[in-house]
């Protein structure tokens, strides 16, 4: 055990001194005002349909429950591949996101489809297990075939000022991912202020995150427009400084098509066209898809259909 820790620390040390990046302050009042203002964009007709179809392709369709079964996951994958049976122009979704034990089932269902298999790992959702166990969690999920890993940061370390620990864990998780993409969950609902969110975003990006993600979905509040805006601004500054495009994933609490469009507006007007793609923006959601489908059907038929016309999973 202690050997493992030592060797892990050694690998980090090889990269040189790990000084977490400097960070910028965030003004709470103004960032909330800006996020709210962007929520007032009027998104109608063709814009709405295009936005909702994009949102479907950006979705990480998620099930993260203790009661998940292979059957549930297979059902979710079917929905991921063809969200609307009579309209092939809708979907498929960006990825299916499951616990590690469910990864083989998802891989089996989605093989060759282009839909990614994302797995939460690193002792999700708390992250409060020894690092070797968390890294092993990652390696096994990747071994099962996950090509995207959603890790959690050590929020306790972040809040107590152990920034180097937060940073090192991300670096090592990234190594454990190999070719798999790494999404770093900050769990913004536990970080207490936008300043800490901004700092954690900067640390995660410097440490090698491919995506930064707001929340596990297990903590309230989860994603909000202003916290997403703060993270998008961090991504923008990282891009200005390095030329590297980091992805963004708001997750948790996004349940309606209207909310999804609000997030797309935030991306469009903060980071621009390059980020309006599933490669760089994802929604982590379990119940959002059906509301989006309902709105798409409403635009197509000019009438709302009952919730039971859409499969629950």
């Amino acid at each position, binding site marked *: 055990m202690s050997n493992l820790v030592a060797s892990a620390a050694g690998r980090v040390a090889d990269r040189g001194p790990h000084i977490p990046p400097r960070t910028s*302050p965030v003004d709470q009042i*103004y960032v909330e005002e800006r996020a709210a203002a962007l929520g007032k*964009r009027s998104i109608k007709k063709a814009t709405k349909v295009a936005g909702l179809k994009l949102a479907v392709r950006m979705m990480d369709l998620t099930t993260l429950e203790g009661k998940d079964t292979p059957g549930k996951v297979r059902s979710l994958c079917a929905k991921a591949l063809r969200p609307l049976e009579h309209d092939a122009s809708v979907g498929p979704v960006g990825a299916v996101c499951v616990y590690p034990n469910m990864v083989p089932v998802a891989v089996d269902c989605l093989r060759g489809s282009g839909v990614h298999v994302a797995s939460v790992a690193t002792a999700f959702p708390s992250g409060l297990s020894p690092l070797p166990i968390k890294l092993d969690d990652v390696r096994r999920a990747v071994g099962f075939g996950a090509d995207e890993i959603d890790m959690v940061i050590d929020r306790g370390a972040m809040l107590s000022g152990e920034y180097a620990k937060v940073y090192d864990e991300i670096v090592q998780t990234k190594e454990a991912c190999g070719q798999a993409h790494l999404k770093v969950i900050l769990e913004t609902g536990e970080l207490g202020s936008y300043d800490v969110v901004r700092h954690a975003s900067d640390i995660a990006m*410097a440490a090698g995150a491919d995506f930064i993600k707001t929340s596990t979905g297990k903590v309230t509040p989860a994603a909000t427009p202003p916290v997403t805006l703060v993270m998008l601004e961090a991504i923008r500054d990282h891009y200005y*400084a390095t*030329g590297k495009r980091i992805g963004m994933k708001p997750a948790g609490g996004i349940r309606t098509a209207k909310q999804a469009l609000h997030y797309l507006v935030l991306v469009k*007007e903060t980071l621009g066209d390059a980020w309006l793609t599933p490669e760089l923006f994802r929604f982590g959601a379990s119940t959002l898809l059906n509301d989006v489908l309902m709105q798409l059907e409403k635009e197509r038929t000019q009438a709302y259909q009952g919730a039971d016309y859409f499969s629950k999973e």
Partner: protein
Amino acid sequence: MTMQKTPRTKAQITPRPDAARPAGPALEFGDAWTYAPAPEARDHVKLKSRYDLFVDGRWQPAKKYFPTISPSTEEKLAEVAEASPEDVDRAVSAARRAYERVWSKMKPGERGKYIYRIARRIQEKSRELAVVESLDGGKPIKESRDVDVPISAAHFFYYAGWADKLAYAFPGAGARPLGVAGQVIPWNFPLLMAAWKIAPALACGNTVVLKPAETTPLTALLLAQICEEIDLPPGVVNIVTGAGATGSALVSHPGVDKVAFTGSTAVGKRIQQALAGTSKRLTLELGGKAANIVFADAALDQAVEGIISGIFFNQGHVCCAGSRLLVEESVHDLVVKKLRDRMMTLRVGDPLDKNTDVGAINSRMQLDKIKELVAAGEREGAERFSTPCALPQKGFWFSPTIFTGVTLSHRIAREESFGPVLSILTFRTPEEAIEKANNTFYGLSAGIWTDKGAKLFWLASRLKAGVVWGNTYNKFDPTSPFGGYKESGFGREGGRAGLAPYLEIDG
């Protein structure tokens, strides 16, 4: 992943910052996902083809009429009466009668009730007022809907509450109304300026004759309709439309006890000269060339939002616009880069489109003034960046514009452009920021962006400006006094201080 060990923002201290070619990766704001047109409906608005003068509670014809157009399409919206000196005289006489027989004798609480009714009626008609404001003035519907109209109602609500509490506004002193107020307002916030003028005047027991600007008379006329609808006693509020000659007749009328003017410094000076030697009270709210000061320690992304709101809100037709950006030299390049990217997302066009951020320039005359000053900026050697957005063929338009490399001696750093044109200067120390901020003959407003509270207050107390915003900009509230130093005028509007100009205060 190789670790990036360079500092997050490379220091680029070049002798001459080059905003035209910002270094590093650039964002693209194109058409990957475009917003479809989202026009606010205007079919619920029924404008009359011709508006008479609202005098003594009735609509009275004038000898001459002039058209008012939409600056975004140049379509004629209506014809409006041009009040002659005789018309103004009738209006002032009506106001005098109403003052002596009704309004000054009314119980203050009853006065308050009328003012509350105006406020509520503005809320009820808010959609119509917002659409007409955007049609007649060119400002984006989101601003008329979310700023102009609600704050107008808020002013009436606020001052209605003061009507029966004037004794508490100035404790121990007697407070009496002045009589008839002659009020002349500008075209940038037509309804809101009418509210700023009329609400405190009425609450204090005065009657008013108000002249709206010739390019934006319609919402003041709708306000006259509201006065009619709520049964305001005849003559308490009179609206006389017209141009400069009408305004001149109003302020120089011997029956006027108090003059309140908001507009250009040049006209303000002429009014002050005309009133010299008379017993008339005067308040002036004139031009500005506000410094918006951004420190390196500020929340820069939010500061950029404040810069945008400071200069592009209402096309920059704002007397307190943050038209001089003073940015700490160490973050100049980064701030300019962020600002340019942010400007690329500004949507310029149809004022009635709910997604429009920047509307039409109010008039051809104003457009010509802006163009002249911008040309001077280029001649003087400052570097210009204007967003490459497509502008409509008809109407009066100007792309959001910034100038870098501006010095204090440039005309674009000294003269008010009253348009979407920002001049960017740098400073190195807080002392230098104060010196540069105060080096103007104006003194209406200023903004400070810093993460350090102590620095913010230290600076605010040293700026010669009537309003200083800290980590925000262009925020208006009826409880907050507004007014200028130096050639930005004198007297305060808003808050308890806004009562004083409409009262005789003894003791």
